């Protein structure tokens, strides 16, 4: 291992009839997350035909169109519902959901917890940039308490969701958090997630300088990556820190790692059993 699967590989997975560079802003972490996803698919040797990317609405949703898989750009917050239908109908497909924080946790919060609860065999990437980027920088359900946005001009009074904790509580089989700064770790997390049965969720903390950083004392996109470098702490080390140490830091790594069979596996096993009974 440890050979760099570089961009020359990624270029083979991009749609050659799409215009590049993509629409996202300079320094947006989403492109890095997409790169990690492509590398993971490549490392696992998955066929392009067997991969389905189901995306929601927002900056994260715009990624799907650029990759040469089966891609479905759905409605705001509902990507998981479409993905559920696809996975149940064609369980051999690798179904991957790309969602943002507003997408997955606000308008699609119900779908996220139920996808986790029913343990459907989907890998969900929540690209968390703490803001509604595409609509112009309104606060999202992960905008941290006290931070500024177009709709919290005097500071956000509400608390933000802990995405990983939410997915854990809802029963997801595999829950992890990575960041756009830790691309190699993200590759590993995604490879693990894609190999897991049932519902796996990877939160990717992905900076948005244009809409979030500018309003919250980050001079440039690079400053946000420096912040990620400083504050993202491996979960094992984070657990050893005291409260002051944990302040201004957040854990990254694997939080939940279970092997319960996915819903589609159970369903098709049931069908098989019933067929046996019939004959």
């Amino acid at each position: 291992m440890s050979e760099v699967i570089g961009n020359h590989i990624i270029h083979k997975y991009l749609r050659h009839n799409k215009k590049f560079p993509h629409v996202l802003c300079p320094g947006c972490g989403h492109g890095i997350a997409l790169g990690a996803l492509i590398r993971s698919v490549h490392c696992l040797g998955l066929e392009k035909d067997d991969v389905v990317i189901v995306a929601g609405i927002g900056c994260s949703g715009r990624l799907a169109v650029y990759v040469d898989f089966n891609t479905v750009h759905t409605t705001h917050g509902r990507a998981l519902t479409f993905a559920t239908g696809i996975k149940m109908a064609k369980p051999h497909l690798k179904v991957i959901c790309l969602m943002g924080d507003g997408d997955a946790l606000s308008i699609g919060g119900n779908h996220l917890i139920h996808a986790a609860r029913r343990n459907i065999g989907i890998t969900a990437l929540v690209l968390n940039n703490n803001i509604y980027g595409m609509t112009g920088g309104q606060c999202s359900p992960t905008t941290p308490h006290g931070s500024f946005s177009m709709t919290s001009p005097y500071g956000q009074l509400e608390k933000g969701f802990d995405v990983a904790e939410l997915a854990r509580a809802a029963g997801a089989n595999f829950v992890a958090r990575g960041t756009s700064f830790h691309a190699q770790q993200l590759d590993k997390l995604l490879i693990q997630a894609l190999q897991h049965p049932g519902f796996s969720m990877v939160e990717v903390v992905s900076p948005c300088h244009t809409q979030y950083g500018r309003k919250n004392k980050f001079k440039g996109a690079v400053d946000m990556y420096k912040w990620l470098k400083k504050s993202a702490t491996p979960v094992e080390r984070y657990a050893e820190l005291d409260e002051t140490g944990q302040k201004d830091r957040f854990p990254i790594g694997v939080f939940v790692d279970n092997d319960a069979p996915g819903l589609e596996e159970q369903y098709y096993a049931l069908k098989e059993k019933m067929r046996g009974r019939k004959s």
Partner: protein
Amino acid sequence: MAKEKGNSKVTIYPDWCKGCGICVAFCPAKVIELDGQGKARVVREEDCIHCGFCELHCPDFAIVVTEIERCPK
């Protein structure tokens, strides 16, 4: 992963570069700089240790780092 200096070729596609500066800021060998048009440019390729950071963290897939191919001795 890091290799000897002088064995790597860094290719940047200016058409795809948006000049975010991530590669410039984090390159451990200071191989890349932003040029007058705000695009990343390779200035010290011989110092590249092929860590792969710039390639992995370019949000626009605009950098490719390869080993310099030499004729077998």
